[in-house]
């Protein structure tokens, strides 16, 4: 087979649509309207989670972070700075230590 892409209406159409050597009817494409779950759960931990709750929920839900494996404090520090530098997270440098503390104590390597 020289080309595995199949122009319908040629002999190659047989590969995927054995019955139809002719052009198939256009599939119906209809306007779509959906609702997505909000993903607004907070990080657990009460006031120890204030800094992370205030700074880390704008772009993605907490489960993104909670599903990560345990990482070293320096790895968590680079993650937070990656958010600020690469993704322009509007985070006050003064909040960074509290965020890293939270991550290192709840999801740190021993």
């Amino acid at each position, binding site marked *: *087979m020289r*080309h*595995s*892409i*199949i*122009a*319908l*209406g040629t002999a190659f*159409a047989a*590969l*995927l*649509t054995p019955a139809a050597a002719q*052009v*198939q009817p*256009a*599939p*119906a*494409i*209809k*306007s*779509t*309207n*959906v*609702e*997505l*779950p*909000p*993903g*607004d*759960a907070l990080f657990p931990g009460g006031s120890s989670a204030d800094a992370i709750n205030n700074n880390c929920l*704008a*772009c*993605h*839900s907490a*489960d*993104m972070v*909670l*599903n*990560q*494996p*345990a*990482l070293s404090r320096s*790895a968590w520090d680079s*993650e937070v700075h990656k958010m600020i530098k*690469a*993704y*322009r*997270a*509007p985070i006050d440098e003064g909040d960074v230590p509290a965020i890293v503390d939270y991550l290192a104590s709840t999801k740190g390597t021993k």
Partner: protein
Amino acid sequence: MPLHRNDRHVRALTRRAVLKTFGVAGMALAGSPAWADQSVRLLFASGPQQRPITPDFPQKGPMILQRTRPPLLETPMEVFDRSVFTPNDQFYVRWHWAVIPTSVDVDAFRLAVRGHVNQVLSLSIGDLLKMPRVELAAVNQCSGNSRGFFSPRVPGAQWAHGAMGNARWTGVRLKDVLDRAGIKSGAIQVRFSGLDEPVVPEAPDFRKSLDLDHARDGEVMIAFAMNGEQMPLLNGFPLRLIVPGWYSTYWVKMLSDIEVLDRSDDNYWMATAYTIPDTPHANVTPGQTGVKMIPISRMVPRSFFTNVTEGASLPAGGSAAIRGIAFGGDTGVAKVELSMDTGRTWQLATLADDFGKYSFRRWQVNIPQLMKGVNSLLVRCTNLSGEVQPSMPNWNNSGFMLNAVETAHITAI
């Protein structure tokens, strides 16, 4: 496909899947926990391993919830056991930025073609439906599929093996659309962007680029249908770029903008994110520095078990049909082999129907008599270029391109 929206259905489906997995009465999933009804345990070397199974996303059946916003939804492994094509309602979902339009008006939607072209275009869905139509079976796999199995672990979406799927894509050739606009001389790359947007305006919008020759190869296509139907919104409705044989990062969803560039794209998502070490298997030693990085591109061969899971029990002394799926990456599957002696000897699997070189291929091996005790089953795929899955797992900082031989430990009792 109907929507599966209630818990009872999920529970029934899960139990049915478990039974079907083993197909013989008396077999049970070792360590199958009581909460398997609502969640799944992904067998990573360290936690967290548990993920909810969610029926809560639109146009989607039960999916493994990796992240709610923006959605990262993984396909449960047993789905791949049911058919060579992954149903739309259980096809995995992966977004980067959370500003995703939740409604798309097909009549108002336009695809822009602009930049280094003779004629700027604004194409409606109707315009595309009038163009010559093509259809192709192809695997879509996330660059970071299986990242959770990296050792040492790395940050990123902690996928097991279900950030992949196989579908029949119907649409038009990208080449035909580019020819309609007319490429000016001096064009170098073509950049693609969708309707999704960053949450913070200054942040880098998600855009991906292909070299002009690749974009014009006649295989890259703009799809408006997936498995014969319009795509679920979360899989890129109304249009998705299809880049056969390449990782999903290039398969831009809700494709709305095609920009022909007279330079190489240096945007964040090309130059920084989705880059791999320029080494065999994109492999480096943890901590290794000074490695040249290049954009990720072609996929590599992989194979999986779909009717047995790690730790499964089967009856000793009886025969067992072991089956799964494989794909060659950027070319077809040459062979799939199974080993029961930790890789000393390999037996050929029987391959099922061939849906073209970019598709999943189902495979099966019949084991006449299963010996009592723990059996280690290894499966590996060799593609038509002679590339074979490595026995040692590859590793890199980003958790990309894992394609080592898969092992399942089966206990025969």
